[in-house]
């Protein structure tokens, strides 16, 4: 207690001083505009809307179910449903949002919209250089600005996107299979009905 502690401390800072020149582990700062830390795969910033295909208007996965709008804790999502169904990129008729706005000055990047979305339509972006000069107009993103292709989603979150695609494909396959089965069943039913019609009098299973 006669100055050794101070000397020890001085030695420690001297070590760090020298270390900062040869030990890159010590120097954690990154000179930002020139160098950037590569984005982590799980990183999230603000939501965007995924669309399939090439046309952002057609391919939007969002069907304007408004669950995210309800669940959003700071209420930064604003959706107005379109009144008519439009064909999506596969040609299937869907309701799409007429207006889909996200106020990213309010959004707190919590990812709850992503979790509650049953259609895998809204995902988190990693883009963070969003500063603008107008905090009202430029930070209110509309549907056009929010829509990003599925390829972009694959680029920023490869693992997750692949999983999502697989799940969607599986669901689709299931749905198709179901539709097929339904169709077949329907067809059968119609056939049966037709057959039944054809034979107006219920003929009990012929015992003959």
């Amino acid at each position: 207690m006669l100055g050794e502690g101070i000397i020890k401390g001085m030695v420690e800072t001297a070590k760090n001083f020298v270390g900062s020149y040869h030990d890159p582990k010590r120097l954690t700062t990154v000179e930002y505009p020139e160098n950037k830390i590569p984005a982590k795969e799980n990183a999230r910033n603000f939501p965007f809307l995924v669309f399939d295909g090439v046309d952002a208007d057609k391919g939007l996965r969002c069907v304007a179910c408004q669950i995210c709008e309800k669940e959003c804790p700071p209420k930064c999502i604003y959706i107005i449903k379109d009144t008519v169904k439009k064909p999506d990129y596969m040609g299937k008729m869907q309701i799409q949002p007429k207006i889909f706005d996200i106020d990213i000055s309010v959004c707190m990047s919590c990812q709850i919209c992503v979790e509650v979305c049953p259609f895998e339509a809204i995902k988190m972006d990693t883009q963070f250089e969003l500063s603008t000069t107008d905090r009202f107009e430029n930070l209110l993103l509309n549907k056009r600005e929010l829509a990003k292709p599925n390829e972009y989603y694959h680029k920023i979150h490869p693992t997750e996107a692949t999983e999502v695609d697989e799940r969607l494909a599986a669901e689709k396959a299931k749905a198709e299979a179901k539709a097929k089965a339904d169709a077949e069943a329907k067809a059968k039913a119609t056939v049966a009905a037709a057959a039944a019609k054809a034979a107006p009098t219920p003929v009990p299973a012929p015992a003959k």
Partner: protein
Amino acid sequence: MIGEFFKGLFLMIWKVVTDQPDPKVEFVSVFPATIQPIISVLLSIVPIIMVFASLFALTTLLERKGLGRIQNRLGPNRVGPFGLFQPVADGLKMLTKEDIVPHSADKLIHFLAPIVLLVPTLLAYAVLPFGQNMVPIDMDAGILFFFAVGASTELSIFMAGWSSRNKYSLLGAMRAIAQMISYEIPLIISSVTVIMIAGSLSLVEIVDKQSGYHFGFLPHWNVFTPWGLAGFIIFLIASLAESNRSPFDIPEAESEIIAGHLTEYSGFKYALFFLAEYLGMFAVSGLAVTLFLGGWRAPLPFLEIVPSYIWFLLKLMGLVCLFIWIRGTLPRLRVDQLLNFAWKFMLPMSLINLFVAAIWHFTSVWNFRGAGLGRWLLCAAMIAVPYVWLGRTLIGNKKITHRTYRFAN
């Protein structure tokens, strides 16, 4: 006329570079006799201000870079290559900032305070021997002059703190004055040892007394004697406190009293305070170099070909780097601890050191075999024993201990 002018100028520069005596003579004689004294004075003043002002700029950069590296950061590196123009940018920022004077402030004193601080600080440079043939005034009572002008800076800090009409400023000023007065005493007493041994108040003579080498390599600097080492350390600690540097930056402790007496200053006036503080630090380090580190003398005989002022500046910058290093490491003391330390440790130690220096002086007549070593050890022991004792009592009074901790499962 013009030819002579340039010839004189060239001769002066050549003499400065080669470290020859009286460099100004030829150049000054070019001018008419009536203005010669003024020219001569200007030729002494302008380089001092230029050199130390640029040294100030360099040091702010060095400090920020060094602290950055100590803290594992890069430090400023945006303005110019390696951030070299950062001080310029800082200066421009300071100058273009609005000069805010609080509504209820005492305007005149608020305005005068930075000037009153800066002028004595600059005056202190008048007696420092920067090189073999470079001393603005070789005053008979040089060191006394140094301390006299140093003492008058306290008043300006009080002026700054009081005139701002801010509670934090006033607290800061009171702390600053208490601290500076307390540490002036060990500062002066530790330099008295050197004066006593050298037998002169003139700084030039003090440097002259430190010439020569033991065994051909160990210079005759005061720091290599027991009393000199102790005196140097005491002087260094006291000068840290005098220049309000960490760990004695209590007057400006930002976590307690915002910025102390500087709280209500901005823009150019703040820059002046800043400048004066750094200049004060250089001056007091320069004095430490002169008193204990052999002034402008080279550390080894064969290095004497390097101009003397280079050695002075190198030693000065070495001390400044030490200050920066200390600043980057240590937390700040509390006011009462600071004063306790000054009065209960520094003052007795410096008095003991004075006594030891006297012993050293009288034992110089010893001429038996091993006298040098015996003298050295005797003096060292006479310092070390009170150091340990005083250190223990200082700590013992506050019941400070190494602690062990219990653990529960």
